[in-house]
C-alpha cells in the first residue's frame, strides 16, 4: 500500500499567543512549534496500515525550512520518506490544499491522511479540499477505520453520535483524536531520522482567496467572585445563576 500523510508544523498547544506588530499574524518569538497534534493520529494510522499490509508511508509538509523539524519527527516515528513543499508565502486553506493536491496527484497513493484540523488556523478544510481536488471520496473526523480489499469502513463523529461511512480506495481520511494511540518515536528512530534525506520541491504559487485583514486577542475575561469556601455558598451560587446571570 502506498500511504501519504500531510502534516503541519504549528505552535505548541501550551503556547501563549501574542499578536505581531503587523496586526495580522502571531508573534512567533518564544513560541515552540510542534507536529500538529491531530496529524500524529494520521501518521500513526499510516504506520499501522503499512505494518499490516506492507508498503510505504510518505509524509508531506508545506512550509519553510522549520517544517523539516516536524518531518523529522514523522521519520522518527517510522515514515519512510519525507517531502518538504518549500514555500513561505502566505497561503489560505485553498492554496495549501492546491499545492498538496498537485504533489499528491503525482504520487497516486492508495490512501491519503490528514489531521482533522490544524491547531493554528483551525480551518478543518484542507483534507476534504484535497479530496475534492483529486476527485476522491473522503471521511473526515474519523475515529475508527478498517480497510480490507480496497474498501474502507470508517466511523466519524457527529453531534451526539457517530456515522459509519463506506468508501472505495483511493481515498482521503482526516484523523480525529480517538482513532488510535500514537507511538512515541524510538531512540533508534530518532537517531536514524537525523541522517535521512528530506526531499524538497517547489510548489506552484497560488492565489490567496481568504485574506486576513486583522488579528487580535479576544476580549479578556476578568476573574469573577469567589462566593465561598464551603457548602454554605451553594444557595448564593444558585441564586446568582438564576437571578443575575439568568442561565438557569
Amino acid at each position, binding site marked *: 500500500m502506498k500511504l501519504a500523510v500531510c502534516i503541519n508544523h504549528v505552535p505548541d498547544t501550551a503556547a501563549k499567543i501574542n499578536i505581531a506588530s503587523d496586526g495580522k499574524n502571531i508573534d512567533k518569538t518564544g513560541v515552540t512549534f510542534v507536529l500538529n497534534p491531530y496529524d500524529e493520529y494520521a501518521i500513526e494510522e499510516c504506520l499501522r496500515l503499512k505494518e499490516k499490509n506492507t508498503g510505504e508511508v510518505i509524509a508531506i509538509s508545506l512550509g519553510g525550512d522549520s517544517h523539516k523539524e516536524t518531518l523529522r519527527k514523522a521519520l522518527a516515528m517510522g515514515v519512510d520518506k519525507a517531502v518538504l513543499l518549500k514555500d513561505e508565502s502566505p497561503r489560505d486553506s485553498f492554496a495549501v490544499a492546491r499545492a498538496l493536491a498537485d504533489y499528491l496527484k503525482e504520487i497516486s497513493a492508495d490512501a491519503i491522511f490528514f489531521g482533522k484540523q490544524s491547531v493554528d488556523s483551525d480551518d478543518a478544510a484542507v483534507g476534504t479540499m484535497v479530496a475534492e481536488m483529486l476527485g476522491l*471520496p473522503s471521511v473526515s473526523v474519523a475515529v475508527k477505520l478498517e480497510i480490507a480489499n480496497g474498501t474502507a*469502513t470508517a466511523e466519524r463523529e457527529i453531534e*451526539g453520535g457517530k*456515522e459509519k461511512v463506506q468508501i472505495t480506495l483511493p481515498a482521503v481520511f482526516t484523523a480525529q483524536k480517538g482513532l488510535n494511540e500514537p507511538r512515541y518515536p524510538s531512540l533508534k528512530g530518532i537517531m536514524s531520522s537525523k541522517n535521512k534525506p528530506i526531499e524538497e520541491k517547489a510548489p506552484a504559487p497560488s492565489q490567496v482567496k481568504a485574506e486576513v485583514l486583522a488579528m487580535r486577542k479576544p476580549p479578556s475575561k476578568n476573574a*469573577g467572585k469567589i462566593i465561598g469556601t464551603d457548602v454554605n455558598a451553594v444557595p448564593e451560587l444558585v441564586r446568582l445563576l438564576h437571578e443575575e446571570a439568568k442561565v*438557569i
Partner: protein
Amino acid sequence: MKILAFAEQRDNKLKKSAFEVVHTARTIADQIGGEVIALVIGDQVQVIAGELGGYGATKILAVQQPKLGKYSSTAYAKVIAEIAKKEQADIILLPATAMGRDSAPRVAVKLDAGIASDCIAFKVDSGNIIATRPVYAGKALTEIKINSAVKVFTLRPNVFPAGTSTSMAAKVEVTDIPLAESDFASLVIETTQASGKIDVAEADIIVSGGRGMKGPENFKMIEDLAGVLGGAVGASRAVVDAGWRPHNEQVGQTGKTVSPSLYIAVAISGSIQHLAGMSSSKYIVAINKDKDAPIFQIADYGIVADAFDIVPAIMLETKMLLGK
C-alpha cells in the same frame, strides 16, 4: 447579492443551526441588499423545509431523493454547488457542524471559492462581508475578507440568533439535481445516535468534570447535575485519556470548542488547552478545592471547596428552584 443558506436536517428534523444559518443570511442580506435562498437536502424534506418559511428566506428549495436520506459528503456537496450555480449565489452559508464542516470544503473547491470556517460574527464594510473567526483555539481572532467571486462561510453553532418566524412566509419549491451512482462515492451506511444525549458542542449548559473527580464512578454526580439542568456532560483531557469518559466529551483545544450560556467546571485545574475550548462561554462557574487553580482566573463565580460536597448540594438547590 444572493446568499444560499444550507439548512441542515437529520432524521427529517431541521437542526437549530438551520434557523441560525437562514436568519444570519437574512441579517447579512438586509445590510448588503439581496436575496436569501434556503436549501434543504434529504429524502422527504418538503414539509420540514416549510418550517423555515418565516425566517427570512426569499425562496426555499427542497432537493429530495431517497438516497439523500443519509448524508453523503460527495452528493451533498454536488447538490449545494449545483444549486449555487443555478441560483447564481455569491455567498454560501453552512453550519460549522459535522455535516457542514465536511461538505463546505468540497463546495468551495467546486465553486473556486475561498472559505472561512467556524465564523462567529459578520459585518458589512463598503459592500464587503468581513467575517470574524477564532484561530489558535480562540487564543486569537481574525477578520477575514474573501476575494474570490463566490464566498463560503461556515457558522459556529449556538453563536448566532435563530430569529423568530414572521408572517412573511416563503413557499417551498421542490427542485431536482440529477445525481449518478458515482456522486455517492462517500456514503453514510449507518448512523448511531446516543439517544437522548445532548452533544457538548450543541449544549446550552455544560457540566464538565476533571481529574479531581478521582474516578469514572464519580461522574454519576456530574451526569445527574447535567440532567437536572438539561445540559450535557463535558470532560477535561486528563479524564478522557484516563478512559473515564469518551473522547467526544473532551472540551479544549484538541477537543470540542464550546460556547454555552453556562459552563460549570468541576475539579478542573484550567490548563491553557482546556481554557482554549471553553473560555468564550457566557457564564463560567468553577468548583475546585485549590484557590490558586487557574480556572478561577476566568470564572464568573467560584467556590473553593471539595466537589464531592458541592455538586450534590447544587443539585438539591437547583431541583428546589426548578421545582423538580
